[in-house]
């Protein structure tokens, strides 16, 4: 029992810090750079993203193991997972418009962009590839979401800090964001080798 918990804990830590999708695999960068200008949108996006990630990991696990494996159509997993993710994002889009309209307008186009985010597709694919069970898939989705949230919050705080800095003109805005991401990634390599799954 305790070894299972250890495995889950390691999965979450590994997905959020050691193999952080943004800083070690450089996935999901469009949203990452898009909403990390302000802390408020970054925090909102983090919560939405983690929730969508877990729900889509759960749904795609069920569909993969109970529909695609019995029918032997696992080669279709990319297309099917994109469909599942898009459906869930559309649902969360509608819910957010009713529940938190302010945040909905701040996130703007990026909410719809979640459906084409690389991380949200990568998580079900990794889950399917590694044959994680249901709980492990959820843990992996949760860890990835937390990792993305962490990346967003760090990035937003740094970008807000250097907003008034005298950055050379060609580097203002997005180029500087890429430089910062590279430097954070450099710092995060310190975690490498911490947990080997």
């Amino acid at each position, binding site marked *: 029992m305790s070894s299972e918990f250890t495995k889950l804990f390691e999965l979450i830590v590994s997905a959020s810090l050691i193999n952080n999708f943004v800083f070690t695999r450089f996935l999901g960068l469009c949203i990452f750079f898009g909403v990390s200008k302000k802390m408020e949108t970054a925090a909102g996006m983090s919560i939405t993203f983690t929730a969508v990630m877990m729900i889509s990991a759960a749904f795609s696990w069920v569909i993969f193991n109970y529909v695609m494996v019995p029918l032997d159509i696992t080669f279709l997993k990319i297309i099917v997972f994109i469909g599942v993710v898009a459906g869930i994002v559309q649902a969360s889009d509608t819910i957010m418009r009713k529940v938190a309209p302010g945040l909905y307008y701040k996130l703007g186009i990026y909410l719809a962009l979640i459906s084409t985010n690389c991380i949200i597709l990568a998580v079900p694919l990794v889950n399917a590839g590694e044959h994680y069970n249901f709980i492990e898939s959820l843990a992996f989705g949760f860890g990835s979401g937390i990792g993305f949230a962490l990346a967003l919050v760090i990035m937003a705080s740094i970008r807000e800090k250097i907003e008034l800095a005298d950055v050379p003109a060609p*580097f203002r805005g997005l180029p500087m964001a890429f430089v910062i991401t590279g430097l954070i990634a450099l710092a995060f390599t310190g975690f490498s*080798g*911490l947990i080997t799954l």
Partner: protein
Amino acid sequence: MDTAKKEHQLIVSVSPHIKSEETTSRIMWSVNAALLPATVMGAYFFGPRAVFILVISIIASVLSEYIFQKSLNRKVSVNDGSAFLTGLLLGMNLPPSVPFYIPIIGSFVAVVITKQLFGGLGFNVFNPALIGRAFLLISFPKLMTIWKEPTAAFIQFDAKTTATPLGILKEEGVAKLMEVFGDNISLYTQLFVGHRAGSIGETSSIALLIGAAFLLYRGYISWHIPVSFLGTAALIAWIFGTKGALFTGDPIVHLFSGGMLLGAFFMATDYVTCPSVKKGQILFGIGCGFLTMLIRLKGGYPEGVMFAILIMNCFSPIIDRGFKTKVFGAKKETKESKK
């Protein structure tokens, strides 16, 4: 205007009215001076080659800052000593056997990418010297992990390669460390004096402590970060230091080896990249100590000080936000006032 009249003149100026002798350049040059004992010990143990590396690193840092600022028509600020300090710290963090182009690449990354692109001194998010070193470690992993045995004789050209104490601890355990250094006492003295393999400026604990005492005495660094950093690391080393047994680890070996002292006193306390609120600094120090020991005991690298400080640098804007002091007279924001 006669002098009598001038003396009675009232000076009207805008605030702030605080008068202090302290300037950025004075503090920077003081830190450089505080690093002098450790530099001298490094030169003594690792010979002329180490001196060359330090000099090249400093010249490359100052030159890259000068060229960058000149070419962008900015005010050239090499006299404030910060580029000199970056170069010195980077040089002190390099193994004494690296080829001479290594400190040049490192200095460029440190000064131009980590500091000047962010808008110069005061805006950089990461410690420049540490980013320089991390960049070198990842780009040239082989060159950056060849350690020379200290010779203690200034002119001796063929030095043996050997492993650092932390490297031995990581690969072969405590028993091997004792075998190499003899007994406990001789291990502690060697670590204290600095007669061990390691980066140029990090080996001599006593020299680093002298420099740190000078900075603390002058009030240029406060105790918050070093104490919380070293305290956390010592506690974790004591509890989890030995595999399989709790509360039997040896904190002294961990504190006096690797770049622990250099990092805790000279690099984590960098004004720009650590949180500015005191409570936040304590949290920052605890985070550094925890991550250092996590990487040393569990991670893939034998030494974790550099990565720990860099990772905590990422978090320091958030820490500052969390411990924001209340503005005098400000009212707590309520739901009504928001609407």
